[in-house]
């Protein structure tokens, strides 16, 4: 862990750290002193290893695990091609993994020589907010660390552009594409093209849905946005003591992240019987600080008695905070705020006593993505769907997260 921390110099890159710190826990005894590239590859090996030996291991350990493995696959995972939960404790930094195990050779994808071959990174949105900046930085840093030639593109929130970007990089000779899909659907064109050219496709962050596991894209890595919503609800229940007049600032309309974070939040309120939390207002603020502020201003005018705000990303939460501050209503004693992302600004707001909690959405997929790619094309394969672990910040760990740089 110490070694990794000193290796990264730029603060924005620090999310990478959080992740690699997590994954290196399992491998630290064996290879802390080894060069970083092998460490990360080692992690993937461990993960894949767990996966391939699953059946034997489950049978040997307990019937309980076997039952968990059999049923109850979340619908989002099914949509992304996951068919069965891989039992056994996943590597640190990974929440859960779902089979089948994808192997590049099954799609006719040849081995990749990381010392020579080119890899492509397709970002979906402008690197104008902390999440996207950290997301791209993580990929670029990991490629640099492994000394890999990396092409990069940015689709500026345009699905058609992302299709074009990916195909363009394939035409330039990229042997694999790691990409952050703009949405769960709409990239069929690029996926089909990659398949026809036998190029490995690794989606990160948002999953590609409507695919058969391993048949269209390679291993998918993502956060569980429904779970993020559920954890936000738990934090909200804890913060408010289960009684609140609550407003929800929704993300951009028509994006599955918004739907998932909303559905998870409401489902958890219901499951926890938090009927004292009354949702009085629910409006989109487009994931932006500007809209977060103006929508909250109107909210405060129409519902001056509101006591809590759930913002589906940090930027909207910070906009809401600005609106509250203008009215002299900032501070969790007056209005509780819980948001999702884990950016520095929001974590600082916890320290300042303005936010109750922030659920992290980890943008640093670089190390896991390259490790999964390696296992997929050169090793024993990688699980169809991997859900990575997201942190959670509140008063108890916010200052520490800022000091250590884990908040991005």
């Amino acid at each position, binding site marked *: 862990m110490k070694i990794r921390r000193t290796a990264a110099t730029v603060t924005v890159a620090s999310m990478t750290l959080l992740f690699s710190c997590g994954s290196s826990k399992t491998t630290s005894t064996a290879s802390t002193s080894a060069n970083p590239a092998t460490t990360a590859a080692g992690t993937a090996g461990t993960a894949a290893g767990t996966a391939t030996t699953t059946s034997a291991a489950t049978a040997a350990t307990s019937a309980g695990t076997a039952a968990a493995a059999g049923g109850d696959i979340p619908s989002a995972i099914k949509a992304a091609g996951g068919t069965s939960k891989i039992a056994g404790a996943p590597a640190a930094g990974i929440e859960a993994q779902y089979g089948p195990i994808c192997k590049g050779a099954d799609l006719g994808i040849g081995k990749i020589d990381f010392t020579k071959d080119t890899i492509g990174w397709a970002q979906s949105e*402008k690197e104008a907010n902390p999440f996207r*900046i950290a997301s791209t930085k993580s990929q670029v840093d990991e490629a640099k660390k492994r000394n890999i030639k990396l092409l990069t593109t940015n689709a500026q929130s345009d699905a058609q552009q992302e299709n074009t970007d990916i195909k363009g990089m394939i035409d330039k000779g990229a042997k694999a594409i790691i990409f952050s899909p703009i949405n769960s659907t709409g990239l069929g064109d690029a996926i089909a093209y990659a398949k026809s050219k036998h190029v490995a496709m690794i989606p990160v962050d948002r999953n590609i849905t409507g695919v058969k596991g391993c048949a269209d894209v390679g291993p998918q890595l993502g956060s569980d946005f429904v779970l993020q919503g559920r954890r936000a609800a738990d934090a909200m229940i804890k913060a408010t003591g289960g009684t609140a007049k609550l407003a929800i600032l929704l993300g951009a309309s028509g994006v599955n992240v918004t739907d998932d974070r909303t559905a998870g939040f409401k489902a958890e309120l219901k499951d926890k019987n938090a009927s004292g939390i009354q949702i009085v207002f629910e409006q989109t603020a487009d994931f932006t600080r*500007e809209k977060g502020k103006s929508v909250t201003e109107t909210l405060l*005018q129409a519902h*001056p008695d509101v006591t809590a705000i759930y913002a589906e990303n940090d930027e909207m939460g910070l906009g809401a905070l*600005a609106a509250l501050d203008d009215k002299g209503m900032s501070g969790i004693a007056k209005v509780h705020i819980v948001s999702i992302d884990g950016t520095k*600004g929001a974590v600082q707001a916890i320290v300042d006593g303005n936010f109750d909690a922030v659920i992290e959405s980890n943008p640093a997929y670089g190390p896991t993505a390259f490790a999964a790619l390696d296992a997929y094309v050169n090793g024993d394969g990688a699980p169809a769907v991997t859900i990575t672990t997201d942190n959670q910040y509140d008063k108890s760990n916010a200052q520490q997260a800022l000091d250590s740089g884990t908040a991005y």
Partner: protein
Amino acid sequence: MTSTAAHTVGRSATHGWEDITSWVRQRGVYIALALVILYNVIFTAHFNQWDTVQLLFAQMPPVLIVSMGMALVIGTGGIDLSVGATMAIASAVLAKFVAPASSHGLGSPIALAIAMALLAGLAVGVFNGTVVAVGRVQPIVATLSLLVAGRGVALVITGGALVELFDPFLKVVRQGQVFGIADVMIVAAAIAVVVSVLVRRTTLGYRLVAIGGNRRAAVLAGVPVRSTLITVYAISGVFAAVAGLIATARLRASDPSYIGLLMELSAITAVVVGGTPLKGGQVRVLGTVAGAVLMQLLQTTLLAHNIPNSVSEMVEALIIVAAVYIQRPSRSAA
């Protein structure tokens, strides 16, 4: 103009009815505004308070100021699609100058930063005006180029990310009041008065309306078309910069990706709903103000009643169509 024509024609035929339709036609936006206010007074909780007015005064100035510039440009028969991007550029320039070195800024005094931001707006406006007047490029195309490129320029200036700004003067802009009325609203109102006087009482006003009415006739009448057009687009650029500064102060940050996003459409809507014809030759300042207030109030109303976003957008579209339909030129005049 057209409605006065209708009025005269109507007098000879069906006197009373034509009078009424003409009256309504000229005042469509005010009637719609009165209806929305009436609805709120009756049905919206916490509407009948000074707070409501204060919120409106805090949120309105940017769109109001941009609409004033847009009304002038539309009066010349042109259009300025670059206003939103210009707001972003002004915001980015302000941030670049005023932000401390730790945030990749130059740490200049706020006065210099504001001056540079306004200068940037002026430069954009002069560029637009020159392309339209001298280059004889259609305004929609000329200003479209900056709609597309301007935001990119702004992003390059700030380095892409949102920059938080803590200058005390921005807090004054955000919170300053005179007798309970927001300073920024006073600025917006002053701009509206100036534009109103400009249109009705100055040579520039007569000239821009003349160009909008019939450019060739204006040329023949000796109107200096080029300098007039450049001036009008320059005014629009500076107004957009002022709006960008106010929006930045309100947000406490420069966010070039989103500041002024889609502002061109809001401004055009305010102007058109306010009864100014897109073909030019006429500028209705008070109508534009009413149009801007109407659209803002409509959004606030739909939000306050927690109407889902998809429905809100349809309602807004319907009101725009209705207001414009009411004010269409009558057949007898056409």
